[in-house]
C-alpha cells in the first residue's frame, strides 16, 4: 500500500548538515519550559530524598516484609529502558540494517541517560547512603572486601561496565559528527567540540580504525547488554522467595527490557520528529520497522509471561501458586491486570499499518506500553514481599508520597539530561545518514544499470520499477 523509501536518496549532504545543526541551535520557548518542568520535578525528588536522608527510610512507608519497593522497581524499569538503544543499535549494525542510522543516536543517548537514572536508585534505596562505596572492590587497610557472592555487587560491576561501554559506544559513534559541529560552530561550542572531536580529520587511517572499533564495540555490547539485565534479574532469581526464584527470569527481564526500550524509542522518535521537524530522516517507514520490532518483542514478552504463569500453575509449589492467585485477585490485582492489558493487548495496535503511521496514536501507545512495563516491575517486587513464606508477615503496603516523589523526579532527571543532549549534541547521526544516502544511491544506480542491461538483452520484457526497498 505504502511504497516509500526509508530515506530520500537525493537529499543534499549540505542539507543534512544544516538540518541537524539547526536542531541544536536557538531553543524555542517550549524548550525552556520543558527544562524548567524537569528541574522542578528533580527538586521534588531532592526534597523527598533530603527527608529520607535525614530521617531514615521510614517516611517512604517501607516496612518489615516490604523492604524493597518502588525504588527497586524503578531501578529495574530504567535499566530495562536502557537496553534497547545500545542493544538494538549494535544488533542492527551487525546485520547491516541501515535504517538504524537516522534513529540510533538518540536511542543510544536514551540508553546512557536511563542508565544514569537507574544507577541512582540502588544508591537512594540504601539505608546508609553515605557508605555506598563499600560495595566497590577497593583495597582497604582493614582488609575488607565486598561480598562477591551478592547479586548487588554483580549489579555494581555490570552497571559500571555497561555504563562505560555504552557511553563509549555513543561517544565513538559521535566523533565524526562532533568534527562536523566543530567545523561549523562558534564561541564556546567551538571550544567544546574541538576538545570532544579529539582532532578527527576524517582521514582513511581514522576511518579504518573507526570501522573496526565500532564493529568490536557492537560485538561486545550485545552479550554485555544481555548479561546486564540477566544480572539485574539475578537480584530476584538468586533469592529463594516465591515469585522471584524463577528460572525464566533472565530471558523474561531481557525481553521486558527490550520491550520498554523500544516503546521509549518510539516515544522519543515522535517527539524529535515533531519538534525538530526531522520528517526527512525519521521517516514513516523507519517508524513502521521500529513498531513491527516492538510488536514482535511484545509477543515474546507475552509468551514468557504465559510460560511463567503456567509453570507456576502446574508446578504445584504451594507458595508460588498462592502468590500467583493473589497477584490476580488480591490487593495488587488492578496493577496486575493493567500490566497485562498494557503489555499484551495494547501492542496489537502496532499490528495495524494505519495506526503505525499515525504519530499521535503511536505516541500514546508507546507511553501505555511503558506504563505496562513499569507496572510489570512493580508486580515483580511488591507481591512477593507481601506474600512470602511466612504467613504471619503477609502485608500489603502502598508507597508514600516521599517514595513516589523520588520516582517522579527520576523522570525529570532523565528528561533534563535528554533535553540538554539534544541541544548540545547532534541527535541524528549526520555522517551515517550520508553513508546511508550514498550507499542507497549507489544501489539505485546499479539497479538502473542492471535494468537497462536487462531491457537491452530482452526487448520484450517490460521490467517493473527498480526495487526501492533498501536493506
Amino acid at each position, binding site marked *: 500500500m505504502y511504497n516509500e523509501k526509508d530515506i530520500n536518496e537525493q537529499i543534499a549532504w549540505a542539507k543534512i548538515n544544516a538540518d541537524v545543526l539547526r536542531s541544536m541551535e536557538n531553543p524555542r520557548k517550549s524548550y525552556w519550559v520543558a527544562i524548567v518542568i524537569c528541574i522542578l520535578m528533580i527538586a521534588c525528588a531532592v526534597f523527598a530524598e533530603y527527608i529520607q536522608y535525614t530521617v*531514615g527510610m521510614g517516611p517512604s512507608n517501607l*516496612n*518489615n516484609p516490604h*523492604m524493597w519497593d518502588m525504588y527497586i522497581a524503578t531501578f529495574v524499569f530504567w535499566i530495562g529502558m536502557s537496553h534497547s538503544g545500545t542493544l538494538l543499535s549494535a544488533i542492527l549494525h551487525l546485520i547491516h540494517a541501515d535504517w538504524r542510522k537516522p534513529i540510533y543516536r538518540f536511542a543510544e543517548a536514551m540508553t546512557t541517560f536511563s542508565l544514569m537514572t537507574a544507577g541512582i536508585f540502588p544508591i537512594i534505596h540504601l*539505608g*546508609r547512603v553515605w557508605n555506598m562505596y563499600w560495595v566497590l572492590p577497593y583495597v582497604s587497610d582493614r582488609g575488607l572486601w565486598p561480598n562477591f*557472592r551478592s*547479586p548487588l555487587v554483580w549489579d555494581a560491576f555490570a552497571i559500571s561496565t555497561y555504563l562505560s561501554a555504552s557511553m563509549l559506544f555513543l561517544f565513538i559513534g559521535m566523533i565524526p559528527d562532533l568534527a562536523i559541529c566543530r567545523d561549523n560552530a562558534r564561541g564556546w561550542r567551538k571550544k567544546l567540540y574541538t576538545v570532544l572531536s579529539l582532532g578527527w580529520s576524517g582521514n582513511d587511517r581514522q576511518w579504518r580504525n573507526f570501522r573496526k572499533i565500532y564493529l568490536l564495540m557492537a560485538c561486545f555490547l550485545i552479550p554485555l547488554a544481555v548479561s546486564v539485565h540477566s544480572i539485574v534479574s539475578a537480584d530476584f532469581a538468586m*533469592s529463594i522467595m516465591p515469585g522471584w526464584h524463577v528460572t525464566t527470569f533472565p530471558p523474561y527481564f531481557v525481553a521486558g527490557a527490550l520491550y520498554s526500550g523500544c516503546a521509549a524509542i518510539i516515544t522519543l522518535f515522535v517527539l524529535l520528529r515533531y519538534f525538530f521537524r526531522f520528517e526527512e530522516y525519521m521517516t514513516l517507514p523507519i517508524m513502521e520497522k521500529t513498531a513491527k520490532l516492538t510488536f514482535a518483542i511484545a509477543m515474546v514478552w507475552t509468551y514468557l509471561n504465559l510460560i511463567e504463569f503456567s509453570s507456576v500453575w502446574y508446578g504445584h509449589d504451594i507458595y508460588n501458586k498462592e502468590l500467583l492467585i493473589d497477584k490476580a485477585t488480591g490487593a495488587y490485582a488492578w496493577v496486575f491486570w493493567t500490566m497485562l492489558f498494557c503489555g499484551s493487548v495494547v501492542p496489537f495496535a502496532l499490528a495495524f499499518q494505519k495506526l503505525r503511521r499515525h504519530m499521535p496514536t503511536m505516541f500514546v501507545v508507546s507511553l501505555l506500553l511503558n506504563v505496562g512495563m513499569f507496572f510489570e516491575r512493580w508486580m515483580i517486587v511488591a507481591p512477593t514481599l507481601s506474600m512470602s513464606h511466612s504467613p*504471619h508477615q503477609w502485608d500489603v503496603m502502598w508507597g508514600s508520597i516521599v517514595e513516589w516523589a523520588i520516582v517522579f523526579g527520576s523522570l525529570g532527571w532523565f528528561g533534563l539530561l535528554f533535553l540538554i543532549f539534544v541541544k548540545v549534541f547532534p541527535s541524528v547521526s549526520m555522517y551515517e545518514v550520508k553513508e546511508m544516502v550514498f550507499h542507497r544511491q549507489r544501489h539505485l544506480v546499479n539497479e538502473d544499470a542492471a535494468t537497462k542491461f536487462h531491457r537491452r538483452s530482452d526487448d520484450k520484457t517490460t521490467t517493473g520499477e527498480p526495487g526501492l526497498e533498501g536493506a
Partner: protein
Amino acid sequence: MSLDNLLSNWSQYRKGHEEGGFHDYEHRWGMAIDLDICTGCNACSTACYAENNLAVVGPERFEKGQAMHWLRVERYWDQSELDHPEQGASFLPMMCQQCNAATCEPVCPVAATYHTPDGLNAQIYNRCIGSRYCSNNCPFRVRYFNFYSYYESSWPEPLNMQLNPDITVRDKGVMEKCTYCVQRIRSAKNKAKMEDRKLEDGEFTTACAQACPTNAIVFGDWQDENSQVAKLWKKHEVTRAVTKQNKDNPEKRGYRIFEELNIDPSVMYLERVREKV
C-alpha cells in the same frame, strides 16, 4: 603472598557446608522450643526488648510494620483442619533461626552478615549499608531494619538508664536481628576462659529462655552431647543438614520451620499436642 595462600588452601576454600565448611565449629548454639507448653505470654519478647536495647516504636509505626521485636510471638487462629479449632490461638515464638546455610548471608553486598565459628548468623552493624537484601531473602522475615533513628524517641529520660551497657544502640539505616544474646555468650566464654575450664551447659542462657515461665525455650550448645538442647534434638529425632526429618513415630514432635528450603535452621520446634476426639 595472597596467591600462595590461595594455592595452598585451595581445597579448603572450596568446601561448602555439606563437607563441613571452611572451619570447624567451636560451638553450635541451638534452641528447642516446645509449643505445647508455650502459653503465648510474650515474656520472652519483653525480656528480649530489655536485654537487647530494642527500640519501642510506638503504635503508629508498629501498625505500619516498622516494629523492632527481634522475638515475636506469632498467633495463628485458622486451624480448621484440626479437630478442635475453637481451642484458641496457637502460638509460635519466632526469632532468627540462625540457619546454618542462611539465605541472608550470601546476598549481603558488603558481607555485613556472616557465619561465626559459633554457628551464629552474625550481623555487623558498622558494616551494614542498609540494602535490606538480607531481609528480603529471609523466609522467616525476622530481620528488622532501623527505619528511623529510633533511639531519639524510644527511651526518654530517665528510661535511657535502663539500657543494657553490654551492647550498642543502633542508628537509622542498619539491619538488626536476634543474636542469641551474643553478649551473654561472649561474657560466659570469656569467664570460662579466664577460669581455664570448658563452658558448661546451663551456665548461662538467653534472655528469652531465662524469662520463659514454662521453660518452653531451651538454649544450649548443640555440639555438646550432654547439653539439654542436644538431648532434646536427639529425643525427637531431629537431625541437621537435611531438608526433611524422616520419622514415623508421632510421639517425636520435633521439626524445623521451612527446612525444606535447605537452609538448615538451628531452632527445633516441638509440635503442639491436641487431644483427639
